[in-house]
């Protein structure tokens, strides 16, 4: 776990995770991706042990054990982690979800397209933006 992590992907659906990784890989962004399979793992990643700070978190909302919005709340509530950009990447386009995510401090809200090309484009754009274009505070 000592290796540097660029992207933390929190995704319980193995297929979606694989598709996401593939999309990132095509842009050569998948080298330092860490995948958590549920909310609890994600919280462990941040709050149990000295883990390198990722450049961006791609967070699904519907997660086993701890809900994605709860994970978001914990990240944004903690002084240590609150400056980490969190991009919500979910299938839900329900208005209440979008509203709550932004209220809790999400930096983006992306609805996963069903269409694979569109999905791949969205994921790789997000990766490119946050890893290459965005300048986080040092």
């Amino acid at each position, binding site marked *: 776990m000592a290796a540097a992590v660029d992207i933390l992907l929190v995704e319980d*659906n193995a*297929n*979606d995770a694989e*598709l996401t990784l*593939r999309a990132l890989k095509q842009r050569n962004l998948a080298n330092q991706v860490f995948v958590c399979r549920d909310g609890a793992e994600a919280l462990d990643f941040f709050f149990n042990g000295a883990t390198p700070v990722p450049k961006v978190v791609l967070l699904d909302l*519907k997660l086993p054990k701890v809900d994605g919005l709860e994970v978001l709340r914990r990240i944004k509530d903690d002084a240590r982690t609150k400056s980490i950009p969190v991009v919500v990447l*979910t*299938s*839900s*386009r*329900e*208005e209440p979800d979008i509203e709550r995510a932004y209220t809790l401090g999400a930096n983006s809200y992306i609805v*996963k*397209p*069903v*269409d*694979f*090309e569109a*999905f*791949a484009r969205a994921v790789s754009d997000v990766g490119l933006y946050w890893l290459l274009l965005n300048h986080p505070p040092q």
Partner: protein
Amino acid sequence: MSWSLERKLPLFVTILLVAVAITQLTIGYGEVRQASLALADKRLPLATKVLADLFQAGQGRVRITALAKDPAIAAFLRSGGSSGREAALVAMRRVTSDTATNAGLELRDFSGKLLLRTGRFSAADSVYVSPGTDSARYGPLMRRDTTLFIAIAAAVGGGEGKDAERGGGIVQQVARMNLSERTRTTLTGLAGGDVRLLLGNATGDPAPPATVLNSRTPVRYERGETMRASAAPVPGTPWMVVAELPSGVVSAPARAYLTGMAPLALLIVIVGAVIAWWGSRRMTSPLREITTAAEAIAAGNLERRVQVGRQDELGRLARSFNTMAAQVARSLQHSEAMLRGVTETAHDAIIAADTDGLIRFWNPGAERLFGYRTEEVLGKPLTMLMPERFQDAHRLGIRRYVETREARVVGRTVELAGRRKDGTEFPLELSLGAAPLEGGMSFTGVIRDITERKRTQEALQTSNAELEAFSYSVSHDLRAPLRAIHGFARILLEDHHAKLDPEAQRLLGVVDQNTRRMGQLIDDLLAFSRLGRKELAAGPVNMEELAHTVADEVRRTDVERKGSLAIQIDPLPPAHGDRALLGQVMSNLLQNAAKFTRDRAEARVEVGSQRDGGQTVYFVKDNGAGFDARYADKLFGVFQRLHSTEQFDGTGVGLAIVKRIVQRHGGRVWAEGKVDHGATFYFTLPTEEH
């Protein structure tokens, strides 16, 4: 003080009669007085003229003229009284004895010196009359005690010329003025008994006022009493005749008229007043009776009627009054029966209360709902029907409304809780109205038990929540596997392209197409179900501007078109609704119109509106593929399509969304069309208000 008609009428009539009587008497008195005055003024000159003529025609003048011609007298006078004295005396005595009225005879010379006299009349008393040369002349009247005398003188021989040389003198007789009984009677007959006739000297002895002597017309003067008089000279004498009539006598007929007529007038006035009083009583007593009856009816005795015993206007009034009273009673009974019918058959509770919050009306529905019988609640406070926590607000509300007319519940329908007689609480819906009643205010509430509705609502809310959870999982859980199918099929195609023969590649293409379509279907379905839950953010919406915005978007995304597309937007009235949702309606309809005109050489789309009664009908019309009118009702169903996906793509949700949005706005949507002749979609919206 306001006088009753019964008093006013006789009083008025009496005053009128008195006025007429006074006027009549005054005018009559004046007329009569004027007439008697005119009569007197005619009689008086006549009397004086007759009298004057009478005195002129006296016999004394003839006699004295004859005596003057007597030779004995003439001889005596020519002698200057010196001779023939006896013969003259004889002649004189002859005359004296002839005449009963004779008072004396005198013979004088022309200088007036007395030469000889006979009779009782003393010379000292006599008046010397200077006669004319050839005619006798009367002297002034002389009064001795109560007797009036006159002197008549005639000349004997001439006073000049040859006669003067011969000498002569004057013979003068003094006669007592004496009126025979016959003369008096005649005079009285001529002048009238009430006329006083005066004879006197023109010089004024006895002296009547100078005015009468100089006036040709009768005059008025005071002589003891007020007199009306006329004067005339007696021709040939220095005398005046005056006829006078006391004013009292002149005005006697007028006074007699007054004394005769006044009691008659008084009698007429009294009789008139009595008749007026009687008539007025006769007229006002039925009016009083009708008034009393009207008051009785107003007080609630609707059976009260008036006795009709007359055929005149008052009888008609009484009959009309009775008819009206019957009509009022009938109407009241009718409306009461109607009210009873409505309130007794109403399923809802209908309760009325006054401004003190006391119950004044209670229908069977209220009995059923609250469990109280009518007599248990009438006059009791409304608060007994509500849980304690509402009572203060209720009292406050009534007071506020009565004082300020500020309505929070009045005129609305609200949901509250009620309390039954047995103490149980239940949800109710109250529609409250306020109406002015007898100077105060009556509150009427229609109350409905909504326990069942609440239960249904709760059930509906539960099922809505379930539906929401369902659509959430559809949104989330159905899309993930779909994405996987699509994604891995694509990966297969991309990464293993070389190993797949053309048929395998075509089949993967089919998988690809259908997963895309499935994704679209899910998205549309979610969009549709979201509509049911979204709150309307209603406000004024500029429909014309909205149509322009949407049309621009449609033009921009319009692809695969063979010909031209013209979108015409007419002036559109504003609407009241949710701008985003109405934008969706406009968008779906215009997208549809664009889609179904895609193969037209000259595609025309028109957005317009028309008035229909109180609402605005908007429409979107195209000249596209149209549809079979038989299936018009299917157009708006979810996933209903009238064309194959090969012909026109789409999931069949667009019009269902249009219908749902329009209906949520309280509007209506419908379509007209014909295959290959275009379609027109209509929808109504409430017009912009407030």
